């Protein structure tokens, strides 16, 4: 039970995240095939495979986040590449100069990352995007007693947020072309966001 996020723990997170995405690649692409173009799983699997190859031993969390962000930007493509890339690049900026992050520190860092995704993608909550998983996760991090508890709450909130995208009409991304026909399908990007946060809770739990 860790009470600080440091480079080894964050590295463990990415390993779990990469494994989960590889394992769930088909599921993510199937979700995307229903309301998008069916490549979300392949896109992220390509990206996280590259992340694992590139990661090495970063000096601090900021360096780690930056490598992840730049690698995702350079290998994923599509809509999710720049968005996940921005998430990590902005997290790197917010984590600058810190060797470890406690619950409050991680809250600030993730909030900065998600703000970057919103600035880049202009999605609001309820638009049926990854924002619907990420925003409740940030909110859930506030006021937790311990880091593991905070991360567990964030993972649960993200999962609930992702599932809650099913009844929505999409207002951003490829799914927005579908209008009413998107109703009934869970958003793939929200699902992959929930997977990332679940992997973090597991790594720290």
């Amino acid at each position, binding site marked *: 039970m860790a009470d600080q996020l440091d480079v080894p723990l964050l590295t463990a997170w990415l390993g779990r995240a990469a494994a989960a995405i590889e394992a769930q690649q088909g599921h993510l692409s199937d979700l995307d095939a229903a309301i998008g*173009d*069916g*490549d979300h799983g*392949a*896109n992220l699997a390509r990206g996280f495979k590259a992340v694992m190859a590139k990661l090495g031993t970063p000096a601090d969390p900021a360096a780690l986040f930056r490598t992840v962000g730049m690698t995702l*930007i*350079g*290998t*994923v*493509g*599509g*809509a*999710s*590449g*720049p*968005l996940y*890339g*921005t998430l990590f690049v902005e997290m790197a900026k917010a984590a600058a100069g810190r060797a470890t992050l406690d619950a409050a520190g991680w809250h600030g860092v993730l909030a900065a990352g998600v703000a970057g995704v919103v600035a*880049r*993608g202009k999605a609001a909550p309820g638009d049926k995007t990854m924002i619907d998983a990420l925003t409740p996760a940030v909110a859930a991090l506030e006021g937790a007693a311990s880091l593991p508890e905070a991360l567990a709450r964030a993972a649960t909130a993200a999962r609930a947020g992702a599932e809650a995208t099913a009844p929505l009409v*999409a*207002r*951003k*991304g*490829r799914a*927005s*072309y*579908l*209008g009413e*026909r998107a109703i009934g399908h869970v958003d793939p990007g929200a699902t992959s966001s929930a997977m990332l946060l679940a992997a973090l809770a597991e790594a720290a739990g």
Partner: protein
Amino acid sequence: MKKFINAPENVVAEALAGMAAAHPGLIRVHTDPDFITRADAPVRGKVALVSGGGSGHEPMHGGFVGRGMLDAACPGAVFTSPTPDQMLAATRAVDGGAGVLHIVKNYTGDVLNFEMAADLAKEEGLDVAAVVIDDDVAVQDSLYTAGRRGVGATILAEKICGGAAEAGADLATVAALCREVNGAARSMGVALSPCTVPHAGKPSFTLGEGEMEYGIGIHGEPGRKRIPIEPADRVAEMLMEPILADLPFRQGDKVLLFVNGLGGTPLVELYILYRKAEEIARSHGLTVARSLVGPYMTSLEMAGTSITLLRLTDDMIRHWDAPVVTPALRWGA
């Protein structure tokens, strides 16, 4: 899946190698990151044009690199937008000191990746402008969607802006012309069959023997509706009606009529459609002053067509007629 490929993951790299071998006088292919530049890039003092997008739409965009059209194109994986490092490297490679225009089709992925590339290029001190093409009337535009998709107008904008850049126009002028072309162009497509992305190995959707997908996107995105197949003349009407309803035009306007093949539809059918589309344009008081007929923006082997109508200014006509020397479009030189 029956295709002349070796492995799905090598499709883009091997096709690029083929292009490099086939057109050494016209283009250079750069790898890691992947992009194509005209053979003589950078051209000193000329505004450079960069476009790109997912592969699988050939000859768009790589086939339009060369004198009088694009300075560079960035190919992504099949139907997946390229990454910012490709666009950044391409932008650096073709910048001739007069700035670089990014011509971006309106898909979230393309827009975001080009945006990031432009941000990075600007940080390096490069002068970059971007124009987003969104001419597809199949998608209802609204504040609450990602907006209309960019389709056939992209090619017309690339040619016309390429002509203007070659003639010495500055970045602001070329960007304004690009916006003007986009604002004066409308497109609509229909598919008779799906296509198979090599990596997926199965068709992107299924269509019954008597069905067509009206309002299809160039990645096999669903259209407005799935309806019974109609005779060619009726199809031409169904494509022209929403275009003409949407495009602000006056009797007597000159237009460019572009009948595009989506890959699997033979030229003979495109000419049958052109015949009727031109007749419809004429019956609306338009003069078809320029034409383009062929598979220029494809969806792999999809059977289908799209029609693009562009209301022309004299300026656009002049730049359309200007010399162009690319693998796929060539005249005047």
